[in-house]
């Protein structure tokens, strides 16, 4: 555990030493802000104290930008530059390497989510009081996004562990996560088996309940199982260097 934290701390530092952390947070907050306040009249047109607009944007942002950015380097870059060899020949277990990197990437997602949480706080608690806000759906929405990130980050880590190119890792992750979010739209318009399958797989459909204040155990299990399975595969993929 100590090693896991040491590795996670180092990773997190390197996010802040490079531009990644600032791009992730800055760009994301800018995009969310524009979407929330400006695009199509913004939240003012909704005429309700409701953060649905924000929960529409954040999954896309996580899927297409944030998660691919924070996971792409994790293993791919270390393999390419050779630093992996030095890291792994320290007295650490492969699982600690994977977990440490996972925690660091997840922490970056959480930092972004924490920044996004500043929106409702600033509007309804301090410094502005635009009225009373129903906080239930906000909290459940953010729990949903945290679970979404947990699954997505594990997936990104998996793709980073099977390639040596961070660019490839970025695009595969963004493409697949984007697809998993987009499947939710398909599920809304297509009925029958195809729609059911799309709804079952889609991160978006799973997330829908959370933004309405519903914590669905099936969705929790779904996100967590994806995370665990992807982490296990990344672990195996890292271990496979021994036998190739």
């Amino acid at each position, binding site marked *: 555990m100590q090693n896991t934290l040491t590795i996670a701390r180092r990773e997190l530092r390197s996010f802040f030493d490079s531009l990644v952390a600032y791009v992730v947070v800055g760009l994301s907050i800018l995009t969310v802000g524009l979407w929330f306040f400006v695009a199509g009249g913004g939240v003012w047109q909704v005429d309700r104290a409701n953060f649905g607009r924000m929960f529409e944007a954040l999954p896309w942002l996580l899927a297409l930008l944030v998660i691919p950015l924070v996971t792409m380097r994790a293993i791919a870059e270390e393999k390419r530059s050779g630093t992996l*060899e030095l890291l792994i020949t320290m007295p650490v277990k492969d699982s600690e390497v994977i977990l440490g990197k996972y925690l660091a990437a997840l922490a970056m997602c959480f930092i972004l989510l924490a920044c996004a949480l500043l929106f409702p706080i600033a509007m309804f608690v301090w410094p502005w009081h635009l009225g009373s806000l129903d906080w239930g759906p906000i909290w459940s929405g953010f729990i949903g996004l945290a679970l979404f990130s947990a699954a997505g980050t594990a997936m990104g880590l998996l793709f980073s562990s099977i390639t040596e190119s961070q660019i490839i890792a970025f695009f595969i992750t963004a493409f697949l996560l984007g697809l998993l979010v987009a499947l939710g739209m398909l599920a809304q318009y297509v009925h029958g088996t195809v729609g059911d399958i799309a709804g079952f797989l889609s991160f978006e459909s799973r997330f829908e309940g959370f933004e309405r204040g519903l914590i669905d155990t099936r969705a929790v299990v779904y996100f967590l199982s994806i995370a665990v399975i992807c982490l296990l595969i990344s672990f195996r993929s890292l271990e496979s260097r021994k036998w190739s």
Partner: protein
Amino acid sequence: MSTDVMIYTNDLSKSFGSFRAVDKINFEVRRGEVVGFLGPNGAGKSTTMRILTCFISPTSGTARIHGHDVFDEPLKVRETLGYLPQRAPLYLEMSVLEYLRFAGDLRHLDGETFRKRARAVVEVCGLAQVLGKEIRHLSHGYRQRVGLAQALIHDPPILILDEPTSDLDPNEKTEFLEYLKQIGKERTVLLSTHNLNEVESACSRAIIISKGRIVADGPLEEIRAKSGKVRYVLSIQDATGSAYRGKNTPKKGEVESALRSIKGVAKVHELPNDDHALTYEMAADKDSDLRPELFQMVVDKGWVLLELHKDTQTLEDVFRHLTVGEARRNRKLGSAQETASRDDEGDDDSDNDDDGDSADHRASAEA
């Protein structure tokens, strides 16, 4: 197995697909020995080291570090080792001190021990001036020193260094070997390289490996004596030059057969000639001295002798004899293998090729 044996391998093999990168390697390194692990690029040095550091697993055979099996107790093995991989792959965005602290944390050194050890390694490796600098801004020489420092941070009894000097300029090399001598006083060091001078100055024993097999293992003196040959080089003036003063005109075939006819000459090999000279290299038994015969022959033929000298074999020659010889023999088998053996001759351009990579090339060439 005595407790003095720090590194022990038994029939260690590693295959990548159909290619055998390491083929039944057996050796032992004892406490306090500094051993040079020599071989051309792609011979299997890095692969062996990666097995010893538990980065990859052997296909068959066993290896033990300080009594711990690399397969069963990888963490114990890594705790006892300090390892510097080829080209010192460090995290470039970290400062030297941060990096050392990271290595110390992963090795579970507490604050007090870390400070003490850090002070020691910074002194030995000469890092005091660059502690706060980011590694990306350091020269190769300094990066190599940082790599060595992280390998030493936990005061390991065994050090494994993979081509630690390959990227260094001559001054840095000399300095690095000085550190190594200091470090090697109380430690077991396995050092891979293809530069023989380094072995001669830093190691007492060498293991030479070629195509995944050990071709020589022993004290340097023993290895040097291994081929038991001396070399003669003879040049005579070529008649095509403007001012030729000889009585007779030498012809290539004639010179060669004349040299061969001298008793005791084992091998005649033509060296690159220029317009003015025909140069040949000969091998003969160690105890003989053929210089008078060679001189007399040239006089009898009426040629002009430009140069004649005798070398005892250097370690370099033995090395070439043991490793390139094998590559040459293979070249005769077919054109496909020609590319494969060329990789082996290890010219300096391919210094940076890591063993794994060239192993792959060769595997594909042999396929």
